[in-house]
């Protein structure tokens, strides 16, 4: 157990060093995140608070909180380094990963954990002041909803990681992955609830697999859900996770068989 932990620790350590090789890039990419959040808050603040616009059952304050929470969930769940795997398959660098004394899945998980921890901790630098500044406009989560949201967070992380790996596996069968990745993000962008609460267009939409990436963790943080039982949603989410896991296994086992590892 200790050996495995030590191995994962080393993987994480090297991965972090690699990510921070260009400091100015890191700083500017964080600045990009801050501007993205500020723009979102400015836009929705103007619509919801300044002009008092109400959407469905959402009060302006609930809606503003929802968008802030979707941003946070996006940072935690959808910030990933797994999207680079597709390119490494095409370039042949993936061969190197196959020679490591650890199977790919635990390796990817170690990368994800380190990357998400690092990304979340660095995002807190700007998130805490913004939340503090907006405190009076926000619906803050209760202890009970926070625990339930944690379960949705873990589920969302697993679903998203597997979906990203499935998209990366396109690299086994094609000479490029960018178009599939783009289409995935377009679909995910609208079905995960980052642009609007999905229940505004009907409860059925909230049970799509992308909804677990953004919508459900954010919605649970807001408090009570009256149109569907959160536990039923959790149950459906676990069902999606199992289905997506089997698709991942199938696609990757076929992909690895067809992988020729050329050019490296």
């Amino acid at each position, binding site marked *: 157990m200790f050996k495995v932990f030590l191995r994962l620790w080393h993987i994480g350590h090297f991965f972090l060093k690699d990510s921070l090789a*260009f400091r*100015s*890039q890191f700083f*500017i*990419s964080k*600045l*990009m995140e801050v*501007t*993205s959040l500020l*723009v979102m808050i*400015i*836009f929705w*603040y*103007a*619509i919801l608070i*300044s*002009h008092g*616009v*109400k*959407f469905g059952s959402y009060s302006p304050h609930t809606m503003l909180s929802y968008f802030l929470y979707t941003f946070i969930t996006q940072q935690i769940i959808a910030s990933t380094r797994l999207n680079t795997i597709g390119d490494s398959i095409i370039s042949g660098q993936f061969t190197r990963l196959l020679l490591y004394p650890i199977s790919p899945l635990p390796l990817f998980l170690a990368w994800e954990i380190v990357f998400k921890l690092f990304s979340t901790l660095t995002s807190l630098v700007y998130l805490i002041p913004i939340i503090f500044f907006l405190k009076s406009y926000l619906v803050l989560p209760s202890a009970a909803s926070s625990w339930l949201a944690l379960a949705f967070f873990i589920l969302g992380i697993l679903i998203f990681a597997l979906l990203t790996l499935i998209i990366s596996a396109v690299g086994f069968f*094609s*000479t*490029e992955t*960018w*178009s*599939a990745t*783009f*289409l995935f993000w*377009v*679909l995910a*962008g*609208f079905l995960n609830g980052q*642009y*609007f609460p999905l229940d*505004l*267009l009907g409860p059925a939409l909230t049970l799509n697999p992308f909804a677990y990436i953004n919508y459900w963790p954010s919605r649970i943080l807001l408090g009570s859900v009256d149109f569907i039982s959160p536990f039923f949603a959790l149950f459906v989410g676990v069902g999606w996770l199992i289905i997506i896991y089997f698709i991942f296994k199938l696609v990757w086992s076929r992909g690895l068989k067809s992988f020729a590892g050329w050019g490296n």
Partner: protein
Amino acid sequence: MAKYLPIIRQNMLMSFKQGLYNPFSALIFIIGKIVRFVFFLLFLFFLFKKVPPIAGFDLYDLMFYFLVFNLIDAIAQALWRGVYHFDAKLYDGSFDYTSLYPVNTLFYHLFNYIDPLDIITLPIFIGYFIFFVVKLYFVPAPIFVVGFIISLFFSLLAVMGIHILAMSLSFKSKITGELLWIWRNFSQLGRVPVRIYSKAVYFFLLYIIPVAFIINLPARVWQANISLNTWLIGIGVDLLILIIGLITWRRLRRSYVSVSS
């Protein structure tokens, strides 16, 4: 000008060959772009159809402003997609190589990759814009249509200035794509009329990052909702951004040190 047109044509041909060498991927990308565009329109429609006008702007005004924003954004992406990868040329030394070409270096890097996939989707966006204004919105007097086209041209000059600024700053930061994304984040505030924002934000979008002049100006001309003086100031601001970009490029390029490739 006669010297540069064949270069743009040649770059465009090469970009098309590069971008369309895998037709299936190209098709998926184009479908993705159209789906995103349709989703955004549906999102605006379903979300705002039941709400009262915001600061005097109704659903169709909001959709019109979004379409103008989309037009500027799509044309900019089509023409200057290569700028996003300018930093890579500083790393791998190809900037040294291209600096020796008998052509203006800035021009070469601005237009060295004209995105064929964006060029293909552009007629769809323009077509929908025309359909929208003719069938669902309104077409103003011809003078305002001409004013709209002129404003759009100057807005694109300003956006080009911002791309030049990002390339110039790359000499120091060694990063271009993310700098452009910071601009694109702010430009998204122009998807709606900037007048809906609070006074402080409006001031910011007027004088600090002039999204009001770059993104909103053509829409205001179409609506005949602008005085001649304000229009001239807007055109002046657009030109000023281009000039700032050019001056910055000239200054910061001097700080470039070859990677001895």
